[in-house]
């Protein structure tokens, strides 16, 4: 599919869960591009996971459409090609494990692609190393902690070598070091041209994105670069989150009459302003 545009385009996407009266997503339009990191923010129940599922066609829109790497997710015959291109890490990894060892769990995707054992071996070892979990390769997934399971799920997704990686809060249960590891991994993948869609409740993770998408009750309440969206304390508080420390300092300063002007997300930006 290399002649097709390398993006996932949601066009006026509306989705209602069966038996529900209110749509979980309403008129969502956004382009997720390959080689970019897009963060999705929103309160609990705002539709983030629903959007994630729509992007690789695990659920299909009631209205509007999703084109994943040029393929319409509503066309059933596109399903397997789309799944190969767009890998997903689910929000709840614990009920999603099939392998009896971590190694086999990670191998499951490549095995389904019909690759040779040698190629599978290479991909599994690589994915385990990238996720930093070579040491638990032989453990049983059920015996792992939730954080470890999340890392296994990340490894399982990247072993598919997809064009897009959808991560639904894949860092939510990780310690600081593992979270940094996963974000570094995302950055490396992005470097190699993989598009990252990262759903998160951590503002500092969204702050390093190329684009931020904010969902509110199933609608897009804002998209844009993080500086523009996340340096507005009111908007951030509306998300049920605390603004980043530097943003709060800038807010305090503004209340004292020292307007910082530009977007302040990091201590460095604050420092630059104070020197100016």
């Amino acid at each position, binding site marked *: 599919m290399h002649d097709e545009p390398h993006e996932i385009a949601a066009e006026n996407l509306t989705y209602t869960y069966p038996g529900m009266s209110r749509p979980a997503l309403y008129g969502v339009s956004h382009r997720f591009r390959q080689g970019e990191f897009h963060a999705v923010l929103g309160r609990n129940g705002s539709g983030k996971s629903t959007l994630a599922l729509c992007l690789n066609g695990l659920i299909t829109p009631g209205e509007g459409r999703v084109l994943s790497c040029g393929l319409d997710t509503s066309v059933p015959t596109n399903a397997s090609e789309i799944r190969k291109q767009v*890998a997903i890490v689910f929000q709840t990894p614990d009920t999603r494990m*099939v392998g009896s060892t971590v190694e086999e769990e990670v191998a499951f995707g490549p095995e389904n692609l*019909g690759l040779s054992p040698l190629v599978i071996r290479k991909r599994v070892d690589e994915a385990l190393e990238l996720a930093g979990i070579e040491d638990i390769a032989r453990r049983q997934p059920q015996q792992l902690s939730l954080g470890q399971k999340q890392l296994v799920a990340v490894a399982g997704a990247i072993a*598919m070598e997809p064009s897009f990686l959808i991560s639904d809060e894949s860092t939510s249960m990780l310690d600081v070091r593992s979270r940094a590891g996963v974000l570094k991994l995302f950055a490396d993948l992005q470097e190699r041209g993989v598009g990252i869609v990262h759903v998160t409740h951590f503002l500092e993770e969204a702050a390093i994105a190329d684009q931020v998408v904010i969902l509110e009750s199933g609608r897009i309440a804002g998209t844009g670069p993080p500086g523009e969206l996340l340096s507005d304390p009111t908007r951030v508080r509306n998300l049920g989150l605390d603004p980043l420390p530097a943003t709060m300092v800038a807010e305090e300063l503004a209340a004292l009459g020292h307007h910082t002007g530009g977007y302040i997300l990091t201590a460095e930006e604050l420092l630059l302003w104070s020197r100016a």
Partner: protein
Amino acid sequence: MTGNDIAIGQYLAVETPLNRMDPRLKLVMVVACVVMVFLYGTGWELLSFSVLLLVVLAATRLPLLPVLRSLETVWVIVLITFLLQAFLTPGEVMWHWGFLSVTDTGLSNGITLSARVLLLVLLLTALTMSTAPLDLADGLQSLLRPLAYLKVPVSRVTTVVSITLMFIPGILEQSRKLVKAQMARGADFESANIFRRVKDIVPVLVPIFVKVFHDADDLALAMDARVYDGGKNRTRLHPLKIGVLETILTVLFISTAITIKFVL
């Protein structure tokens, strides 16, 4: 690990010859045994087979305690089977109480039928405890592949079987937890009053099924997301391979099981 920590029917990742055996051989063996268990007519045949099976299982060093514990979960079914047979089969009356009477044929039917149920549970538990669900699914897919030419939806069958297999331990585990939780709230599952017991069990069953169906849905979606299509085009990191020795042992075991039928 003590027997109590292990969910019944759950795959045990232990290094036993039975674990290493090719899943296809195990499937053939279990199917052959199931057929034999139904062909055996007398208590002696069933008893000899049970002894054979237990000796073989013990020899493979598969932890026997959790396997045997699976029988605990079906005792109610076995008891009902036994009683229905014993009381309702016509024959020479051995003992009676009011309108109820136990006949000799009834008693022997009851014993053989109960033994069959117990043996089936034992066989299936040994299979699922010694074989990873994915190996079982792939083994099944490989054995059933010829049926695809007869338009049998093999991939769909293996998908359903593998998801079910992955969930049996979960269901049993959930029930055990919920029963405990309900007992802590004063439910009485040990009550002699069968109506009381049923009344206490129903509210436990509903949440179990809701949770299990929900989880099964999640799992099916996750497998779908990783391009699982029932295993049609799957390759393996560790490809399945049937060894010579294990084939000989399987043939030997099945032959012995058949011999029991004709010798006794």
